């Protein structure tokens, strides 16, 4: 099995090497195939070739790792502190027979952070289903309501607890951000949940929810990809998932090879980006990097 790992890594380093080489003579490639150039000129936005190449590398790496994962290749992912605390917190709520409050962020369903929040909700709901711990999921958008109910219903079915699934545990609380925060704050002080889990896109209300939850004495685990709100979650919560750890969380919790594959793929892209950055900096500092950087500028 190890040789597959070595082959795939060498393939991608060759790819990055070609990517860097290609940057050295960008005009060359187009001249060789004039016919294609005419057609593509009219239709294809030549100024976005860099995005096309980067996207192909990106998709290639992510899909290859996903396929490797599907074939059962062992994938090592380091421990993410906040996530063990998640299972522990829900366990504690079960012992105390107090509810778990889960908020999949305050954005519409068409935000990737909300999708990550919904898929983590699916994993948490599976645990609460097993122990019949009450679960409260206030949401702020109707599409998130629909997706949340689907995710929780599936979790209860898979845990064999279809009958104890209550459709109204996922509920649309209010339209506006602060009305949502006011309602959830009231809910926290009245229901006193044992664990508050905030996973998704949050804005100024992050501290409103987390500080009230702290006053209500709940264990709090938060995760958001928005850099502006992470400091407030760090100040008021017990554990905070930062930036892309939110996206890694659903893969990590599910232990599903397909999702773990994507995570490993992202790591390799990160290595490629770091290599490209270091090469760029060396070229820039030695004064002849303009054409290389030109390659990355979004048009």
């Amino acid at each position, binding site marked *: 099995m190890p040789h597959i790992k070595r082959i795939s890594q060498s393939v991608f380093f060759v790819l990055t090497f070609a990517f860097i080489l290609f940057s050295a003579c960008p005009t060359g490639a187009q001249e060789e195939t004039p016919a294609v150039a005419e057609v593509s000129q009219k239709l*294809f936005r030549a100024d976005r070739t860099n995005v096309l190449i980067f996207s192909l590398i990106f998709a290639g790496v992510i899909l290859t790792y996903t396929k490797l994962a599907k074939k059962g290749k062992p994938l090592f992912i380091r421990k993410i502190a906040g996530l063990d605390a998640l299972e522990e917190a829900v366990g504690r709520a079960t012992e105390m027979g107090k509810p778990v409050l889960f908020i999949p962020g305050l954005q519409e369903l068409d935000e990737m952070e909300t999708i990550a929040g919904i898929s983590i909700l699916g994993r948490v709901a599976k645990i609460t289903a097993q122990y019949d711990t009450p679960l409260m999921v206030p949401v702020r958008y109707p599409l998130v*309501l629909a997706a949340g109910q689907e995710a929780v219903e599936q979790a209860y079915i898979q845990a064999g607890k279809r009958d104890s699934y209550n459709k109204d545990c996922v509920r*649309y609380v209010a*339209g506006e951000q602060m*009305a949502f925060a006011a309602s959830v704050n009231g809910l926290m002080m009245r229901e006193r949940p044992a664990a508050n889990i905030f996973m998704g896109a949050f804005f100024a209300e992050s501290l409103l929810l987390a500080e009230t939850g702290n006053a209500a004495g709940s264990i709090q685990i938060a995760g958001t*990809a928005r850099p502006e709100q992470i400091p407030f979650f760090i100040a008021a919560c017990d554990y905070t998932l930062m930036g892309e750890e939110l*996206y890694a969380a659903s893969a990590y919790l599910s232990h599903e090879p397909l*999702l773990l594959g994507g995570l490993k793929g992202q790591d390799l892209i990160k290595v490629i980006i770091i290599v490209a950055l270091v090469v760029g900096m060396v070229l820039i500092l030695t004064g002849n990097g303009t054409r290389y950087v030109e390659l990355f500028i979004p048009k």
Partner: protein
Amino acid sequence: MRTLLPLAIAFISGLIMVIAFFINPEQKTVGTISQDLLIWSSIIGGFTFLLGAISITRVNWKQVSMRKPGWGYNLLTVLAVFVMAVPALWPAAWLPSGWERLAGRNAGSIYDWLFLYTATPMSQTMFAILAFYIASAAYRAFRARSTEATLLLLTASMVMLWRVPMGEAFLLFISPDLPGVINTYIMGGISLSVQRGIIIGAALGAATMSLRILLGIERTYMGRS
């Protein structure tokens, strides 16, 4: 059929948007199709807001009908939804003359009055409460327990000083170019580079999630059955 059709729709609509990204804007065909898809998805989104109203009414009405403790408050929410939504959608023509202004959503309507004089002050006050919470969170959390926590509270205190005139004067007193160092090297250097790191990391995470949705690997949002 139940899962295949939605997955196919997700793939096709996503692919069109990806292709549209690479097509010259003057190219009418794919350009307008992608534009239409965006308008279509906002139309679908528009419908679901009625679902939202139904959910909030049903959940609160259940509390009222079962006379759960505090059902009076839930009745208030149900009434507020209708008092706000119905006049706004009520055609002005059906109102006796002189009362038309109360319908619709423009200035002078019930909708606008309730929004300006109840919802707006309440959301402004919820925001104002953050000033108290930021003080209590800073006091409780900013304790020099570890190197990281110490770095957090030292930088926070220094930037707080830098942001206010009296504080800035104090920093200038310590050394004339300290505010400049904070602005260039902390805000424009360390903070900027970390923001970039998190933006790039999160962008890769979001792009992977988008790819999974397009290829139907990520389906929790529509139930995996």
